[in-house]
């Protein structure tokens, strides 16, 4: 499935969403993320640098991921959201709930997480 790519398996877990996250694929992505998260006890970074589009269906996936990590006492962060994706996350209030990583590269952000 092109929509979900595991970039790093642990410490933290980094998953990239690619392309679009919308009503047509949100359920499939949701199921895939449930599988991935079931095998992880780590903080999660969602790499959205290759995500061009997100709708309300996609926001539900992000919310699920965050609550899943919260239940384990772990953190979720977002990296690389841009354009309309960043704007959607901003107006929907997601950055009050999920940390937005501001480092220039994902590697820099991982270093900063310590």
């Amino acid at each position, binding site marked *: 499935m092109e929509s979900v790519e595991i970039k790093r398996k642990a410490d933290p877990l980094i998953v990239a969403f690619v392309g679009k996250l*919308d*009503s*047509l694929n949100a359920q499939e992505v949701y199921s895939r993320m449930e599988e991935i998260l079931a095998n992880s006890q780590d903080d999660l970074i969602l790499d959205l640098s290759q995500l*061009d*589009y997100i*709708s*309300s*269906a996609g*926001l*539900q996936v992000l*919310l699920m991921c965050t609550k899943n990590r*919260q239940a384990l006492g772990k953190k979720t962060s977002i990296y690389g959201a841009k*354009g*309309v994706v960043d704007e*959607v996350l901003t*107006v*929907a*209030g*997601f950055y*009050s*709930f999920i940390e937005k990583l501001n480092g220039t590269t994902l590697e820099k952000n991982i270093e900063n997480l310590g």
Partner: protein
Amino acid sequence: MRLDLCQHGLEDALELVDSFTRERGVSEDLGLRLRLVFEELASNVFVHSKRAGATFLKVCLDYRDGKVAIKMAYDGPPFDPTNFRDKRMDQPLEKREGGGWGLFLVKQFAQNLKYERKGEVNNLIVEI
């Protein structure tokens, strides 16, 4: 274009928008905003209105002077999205179980949203 809700799905409706964006040379940013507003409105028709008895969705798209206009008409019971507020939006994100962002995003990204009921048909005009 008229979509029969029993024969077509949301995917067909979104393909209509994607084709329009490509063929008319709509900018990428505006095209994504158009897709977002349309997806949120159309998914309500395909899910909620259809469940309540709606049978068709008519869509007309227009692009001029750097703006896109969407005209949508659908049957079924009256539903005015300009007056609807999902109560889930009153809950903080940490406590929210479901979504509720659909029409909220429409109102954030659309410059104009007008609704009118004519006979048995719901009519929406949206400018982006």
